[in-house]
């Protein structure tokens, strides 16, 4: 760690991310206006359909975050193959992406439950998509728990990387669950090679919300990455202090 990055890293914000932050706030505001007022109510679902603009982009962002986690885990594993202490930044990236992914999966779950209360009359149904989503949520919670277990940092990162790869299996299962099982939940409305089932303002609002949520997620991720790096620096400094205190105790009994 060079001295310049060390001094930079003392803060989690840089001019660029401040701009990003402002952008995120603006985008969210616009999204609220679009979602709540401009876009029309659904023929069948009425006003409840507005939940869509948070529910769906959130899970897409979560998918994206989990993809990022997996990719950076692979990169981390490749880097550490060359030398054991390499690739730390990939590991941090994987961790922060997973955190963001879990948060947004949580948002999908919550909005889904609220939505369900309105349209199905209950918060929870034992539906394939709902169940697989909660499994996805729990699996990545487990991943985050593994990252927090006290262990050698390198070893912890390696294990976490492998767990990230395994956990990713759940993502396609969630996505395709509506096709594989008979479910109450909506079928995929936007899917590769299929014509979108919703149109017009709803379609554009959805796309725009996705963009807005992406900006928010990116901002979050960058900050989480920096916080993790700061934590690592703090640990390194604490360690250096401990070593020198052990060295001073020259009688050897720590």
């Amino acid at each position, binding site marked *: 760690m060079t001295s310049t990055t060390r001094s930079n890293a003392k803060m989690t914000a840089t001019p660029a991310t401040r701009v990003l932050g402002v952008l995120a706030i603006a985008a969210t505001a616009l999204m609220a206006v679009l979602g709540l007022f401009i876009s029309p109510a659904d023929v069948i679902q009425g006003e409840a359909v507005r939940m869509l603009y948070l529910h769906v982009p959130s899970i897409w962002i979560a998918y994206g975050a989990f993809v990022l986690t997996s990719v950076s885990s692979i990169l981390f594993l490749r880097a550490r193959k060359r030398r054991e202490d390499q690739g730390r930044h990939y590991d941090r990236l994987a961790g922060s992406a997973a955190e963001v992914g879990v948060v947004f999966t949580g948002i999908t779950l919550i909005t889904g439950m609220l939505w369900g209360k309105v349209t199905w009359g209950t918060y929870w149904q034992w539906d394939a998509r709902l169940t697989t989503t909660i499994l996805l949520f729990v699996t990545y919670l487990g991943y985050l728990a593994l990252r927090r277990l006290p262990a050698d940092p390198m070893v912890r990162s390696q294990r976490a990387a492998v767990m990230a790869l395994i956990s990713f299996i759940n993502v396609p299962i969630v996505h395709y669950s509506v096709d594989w099982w008979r479910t109450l939940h909506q079928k995929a409305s936007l899917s590769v090679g299929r014509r979108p089932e919703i149109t017009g303002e709803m379609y554009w609002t959805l796309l725009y919300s996705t963009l807005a949520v992406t900006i928010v997620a990116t901002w979050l991720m960058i900050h989480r990455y920096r916080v993790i790096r700061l934590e690592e620096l703090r640990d390194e400094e*604490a360690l250096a202090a401990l070593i020198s205190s*052990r060295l001073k105790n*020259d009688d050897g009994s720590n």
Partner: protein
Amino acid sequence: MSAVVEFEKVVAVAGSFPVLTGLDLRVAQGEVILLRGENGAGKTSFLRSCAGLISVSSGDAHVLGFDMRVDRRAPRRYIGLLGHENNLYRDLWVREHVEFRAAAVGAAESDTDAALLRVGVPKQLWSVPIGSLSAGQRRKVAIASLVVGRPRLWLLDEPHASLDSESRENLDVILAEASQLGATIIFASHESPPTNGIASRVITMGGGRVLEDSGAS
């Protein structure tokens, strides 16, 4: 003589505690090194980091020519480690256990019997489950499992603990023979008075570093 263990300013961390705090040591092939030092001095930690079981967080560590920061699994096949615990499958019978350890390193079946006899495990114990052995008998089985592998580097953590006096002497002979055949031996011991016996060099550790080195070059 080539260096078997070459540690330079090695720092190693367990939990958040620095168990090695900048350890410098060079061990040449064929040396027999006695590690001494207070409880908590870092002897076990040093032995385990030589075996690659503790990762080196800063400094430079080479064991048997392998860079431990690149791949700490690489040198293991040439290393025999005896820790405070015996690492025995307690459900297996004595002979089965040593046989398994022998087969793992590709030793012949006859080596098993030879090793058991060499270490002094009497034949009537060979088909007793390890779980019902006495403390010293288990230790001997663990040593036999080590002997059978003919390691190039022996790392022994208080190998004499719970052995009776005859077996202690016997173990010293075994170690002396191994070193004559070119093996390098590092063992920790609290035996007092410091019977350097077979040791060609005594290293005193403290606070995760080397405090004294009888053979400092």
